[in-house]
């Protein structure tokens, strides 16, 4: 029997079964065709309301969710932190309760704090989609990466994937590590010691995740190389001597990429820092699938909205989020504790897109 998405919310990849992930990917594959039609719209979510609640700047992800909702005929409302009452001091829960009073069907949330979507899920009847929470998870990014990989590699069994860069602050790395290892791939993380601590290997049980000190060791014989964005806005704590030095030692150059398998594919979640984490000739090269990722992102988000919002709505608020969640004011911990927490559930300060 085919697996279906049993959950009401999409809070993270962690806790999803291989069957559920595959079901989302299969559905997304069939949604791609809608965006190639002359009339790029189907009536599926007519009369449903989708709220895009973004507490962090985002163009790609927010637009992608907005277009996905509109192509399914949902009414999509965008709320961003700069233009909302959040700047007037309203708490997240009060914002959520006020939105709930307008009976939306799906709330998509991006928030700088890990666990914010889970908190929302506990009080809301609407389905919650995590569009990135702190350094915790960014499930739709991992799903679109997986769809791109599957289109080119056919499957995930014994696939070797290297994830390079700022692992510490990256929710993309965490979601991808969970997803790829669940589907049978082996993942190597690599970056500067300050940004890719060895403790990360324990994020996933069973030894299919490892941390390399040199990116050459991660890239060697890789089928897929995923480059993360260096989050310049988070480099004020002396994680790196300089961006230039980072580019020299950790940037993905054509020479480093030549260590991978000849049919390697290169992914980047965007926005890119050309010449820092990825050389321009690699980003624009024939192995790069960065624009395929954007097209697949739309299909994945349509699939997620369809799977969560198309069927009969369940009416009980979710009380059992899969991941541990820490609230914002608990984050006054020591550096060591923070790092440990960052490994298991995502820190409360980092982010990526």
């Amino acid at each position, binding site marked *: 029997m085919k697996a279906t998405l049993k959950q009401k919310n999409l809070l993270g990849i962690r806790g999803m079964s291989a069957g559920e992930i595959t079901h989302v990917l299969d559905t997304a594959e069939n949604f791609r065709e809608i965006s190639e039609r002359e009339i790029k*719209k189907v009536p599926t979510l007519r009369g449903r309301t989708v709220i895009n609640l973004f507490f962090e700047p985002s163009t790609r992800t927010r637009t992608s969710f907005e277009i996905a909702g509109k192509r399914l005929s949902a009414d999509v409302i965008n709320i961003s932190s700069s233009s909302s009452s959040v700047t007037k001091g309203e708490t997240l829960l009060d914002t959520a309760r006020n939105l709930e009073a307008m009976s939306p069907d799906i709330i998509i949330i991006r928030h700088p704090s890990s666990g914010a979507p889970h908190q929302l899920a506990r009080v809301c009847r609407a389905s919650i989609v995590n569009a990135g929470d702190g350094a915790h998870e960014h499930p739709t990014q991992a799903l679109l990466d997986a769809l791109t990989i599957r289109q080119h590699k056919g499957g995930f069994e014994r696939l070797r994937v290297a994830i390079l860069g700022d692992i510490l602050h990256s929710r993309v790395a965490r979601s991808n590590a969970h997803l790829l290892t669940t589907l049978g791939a082996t993942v190597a993380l690599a970056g500067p010691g300050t940004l890719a601590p060895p403790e990360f290997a324990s994020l996933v049980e069973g030894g299919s995740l490892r941390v390399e000190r040199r990116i050459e060791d991660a890239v060697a014989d890789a089928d897929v190389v995923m480059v993360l964005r260096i989050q310049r806005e988070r480099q004020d704590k002396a994680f790196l001597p300089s961006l230039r030095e980072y580019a020299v030692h950790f940037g993905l150059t054509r020479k480093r990429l030549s260590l991978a398998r000849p049919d390697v594919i290169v992914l980047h979640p965007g926005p890119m820092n050309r010449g820092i984490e990825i050389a321009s000739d690699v980003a624009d090269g024939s192995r790069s699938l960065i624009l395929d990722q954007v097209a697949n992102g739309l299909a994945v988000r349509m699939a997620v909205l369809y799977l969560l919002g198309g069927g009969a709505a369940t009416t009980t608020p979710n009380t059992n989020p899969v991941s541990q969640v820490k609230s914002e004011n608990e984050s006054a911990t020591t550096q060591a504790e923070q790092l440990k927490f960052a490994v298991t559930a995502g820190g409360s300060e980092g982010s990526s897109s």
Partner: protein
Amino acid sequence: MEFVEKARIMDGMRINRALARLASEIVEENHGAGHLYLVGIQRRGVPLANRLADKIADLEGERPPVGVVDITLYRDDLSTVGANPIVNRTDLPIDVEGRNVLLIDDVLYTGRTIRAALDQLIDFGRPRRVQLAVLIDRGKEHRELPIQADFVGKFVPTKKSEIIKVMLDDIDGEEAVAIVERPPAEES
């Protein structure tokens, strides 16, 4: 859920003969296969559309184009069916504009699938004409919308409690049409 098979009404040979007759009726009615565009409704309408196209090619020397529609996203019961149905591929390789589109499905029952297929088709363009061919018509009394088939392989009057099960090699590994029924609830 277990269903009890009540009767086999067609075997592979009979299905094939019905399709052969449908093919000649279709080309007769359309004065050839000139502007014909066969569109199968996922899933069992798809192999039926391909077989009809082959038979029309035998008659006319020219195989009409074949497309595929999946009506899941156009269903009118998505808010009540609980778990979301699987979305299959839609693929209309050539433009429907100005074509004589022939929709093909295995069973005509309430007519709601055909309504959804028509809505989807019209989102792709303006066909000159749309006709409907089905392997089995369960009877007009079941219709919930004013929809009838132009070409029918076999007319099978049924009760509401019965289900017509069409099995095709490409999907089910065997060729047959059966009437099945949910057994009455057991006394406890």
